[in-house]
């Protein structure tokens, strides 16, 4: 066996090159997980589809859309955002089980770029979310949802949805670093539901009690859903309140705010592993 001696990268350009290469290695690792555990990814992709069918057909008959319109057309943008909101628990699970199994420590003891673990995870998770969104769009099209806006508006809507997912990714990374064991992910899995229901995803906030409606309107998820409805030309967006009038703005502001809080928190937490 010949000894192998790679060199320490010294120039900034070298470092950047290695940071990108390392991130890609980690991305490939996460993508391999999909291939090796196809059951998991299929469940993840099909669970929102099941919810669409449940809400669209089981409850849909009893739902009314503000300003009139088809409930399933109203529902779909909400379901797209819901698919994005299901993401952070998976991120959290991956991050915390790496820490619990000592894989994080192994990475930290290696001469790789410290940013690569998180960067690789982000790329893989965003690819997964884009795939999830594509499946949901196909599901929507098959039950009669259509985008009525221009292609640019539709792509912008998809961009806002993925922006939301990107900000929630950092919530997942932070929680994954904070929790002691991967089992804690169950708590997040449960807590995501009240957040989902206290929004405009399934029902228009106007139909709720006054204060509940206000909470629902200010839910970051609602901003993205309302903006997506507006851009896709789906029914049921807009409203009297300021927040409802400015959903496009808030669909950018909320994710940036979440990112601005959880990105530094995650970095600090990662650094504190060495204290």
């Amino acid at each position, binding site marked *: *066996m010949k*000894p*192998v*001696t*790679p060199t*320490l*990268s010294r120039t900034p350009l070298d470092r950047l090159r*290695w940071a990108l*290469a*390392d991130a890609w*290695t980690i991305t*490939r*690792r996460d993508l*391999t*997980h999909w291939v*090796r*555990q196809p059951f998991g990814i299929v469940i993840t992709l099909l669970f929102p589809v099941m919810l669409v069918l449940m809400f669209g057909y089981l409850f849909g008959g009893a739902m009314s859309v503000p300003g009139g319109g088809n409930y399933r057309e109203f529902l779909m943008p909400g379901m797209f955002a819901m698919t994005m909101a299901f993401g952070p628990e998976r991120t959290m699970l991956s991050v915390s089980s790496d820490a619990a*199994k*000592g*894989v994080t*420590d*192994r*990475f*930290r*003891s*290696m*001469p*790789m770029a410290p940013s*690569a673990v998180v960067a690789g995870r982000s790329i893989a998770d965003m690819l997964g979310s884009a795939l999830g969104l594509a499946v949901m769009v196909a599901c929507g099209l098959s039950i009669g949802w259509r985008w009525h806006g221009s292609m640019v508006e539709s792509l912008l809507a998809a961009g806002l949805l993925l922006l939301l997912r990107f900000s929630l990714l950092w919530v997942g990374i932070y929680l994954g670093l904070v929790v002691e064991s991967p089992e804690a992910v169950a708590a997040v899995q449960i807590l995501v539901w009240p957040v989902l229901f206290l929004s405009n995803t399934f029902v228009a906030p106007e139909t709720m009690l006054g204060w509940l409606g206000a909470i629902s309107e200010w839910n970051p998820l609602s901003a993205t859903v309302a903006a997506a409805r507006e851009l896709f030309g789906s029914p049921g967006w807009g409203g009297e309140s300021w927040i409802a009038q400015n959903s496009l703005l808030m669909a950018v502001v909320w994710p940036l705010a979440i990112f601005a809080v959880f990105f530094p928190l995650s970095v600090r937490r990662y650094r504190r*592993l*060495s*204290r």
Partner: protein
Amino acid sequence: MRSSGAAVFAEGLRKRYGEARALDGFDLTVPEGSVCGLLGPNGAGKATAVRILSTLLRPDGGRAEVAGSDVVRQAGEVRFKIGLAGQQAAVDEVLTGRQNLVMFGRLYHLGARAAGRRADELLERFGLAEAAGKQARHYSGGMRRRLDLAASFILMPKVLFLDEPTTGLDPRGRNEVWESVRSLVVGGTTVLLTTQYLDEADRLADSIVVIDRGRAIAQGTPDELKSRIGGDQIDVAVRDAGELPAAAEVVGRVCEVDPEIYRDARRVSAPVGDRVATLTEAVRALDDAGLAAEDIALRRPTLDEVFLRLTGHRAGETGKEAAA
């Protein structure tokens, strides 16, 4: 400030977790090409020492060099020269054995082809070639640890840290891991391994450092330490607790030390020099004294007894347990 060619050199390392002092002036020198066993109970500071030396943790005070580089100021360089196998097998359980080694090889900045070649070499060397295409989660405990060792050996590190490499393994798994570690040492790698098991340190280590409450309290070859500890122990169990004082008197006379009396177990223990002679003599003396022993046995000293001899207190008996 180079440290006389030692592969691992630590001086006055300190680390606190709140009130608890995990390391409290820890010194260590491991000569190049040797195997050093860091022996101590849970919470003695073994894991903290390894985490500092492998750049995972910053010390509060003191300094350390690994393969000539400072673990704080030159952490990046240290990481190219070390391998670390922690308390768990830190491998990706979803990936196959080979995929794991290729991934870690790539992260060590080997090219795609070199990483693949290295993975195959290591799978062969650690007896995992046949399981190369199997997911790590289907591996036995021993196989997973060997995969972990292989991953920490990708760059043929100058210094390999093994933190309790056999904890939680069955005897067969332990033997497999021991075999692997011994084969690595032949190639000239310096090994620092932590263990709670005296027999593990005995089998693998050239020198043993006993650590207690964050300090190195004894150091020597296994033979030197064992003679300080008193070698093997003789256990005499009696049927009736009332016979314990008489039995202790007999055992004390034969072994020429004050024996330990374990009232609950109705047992008397003492270190022995010459195993067989002492055993024969003890049997005869007990017989002469008219004592009916339920059981008489010779055994290796336990870590507890090592501690009792070296420190005068049982492991973890006094003081706050420091975080491991």
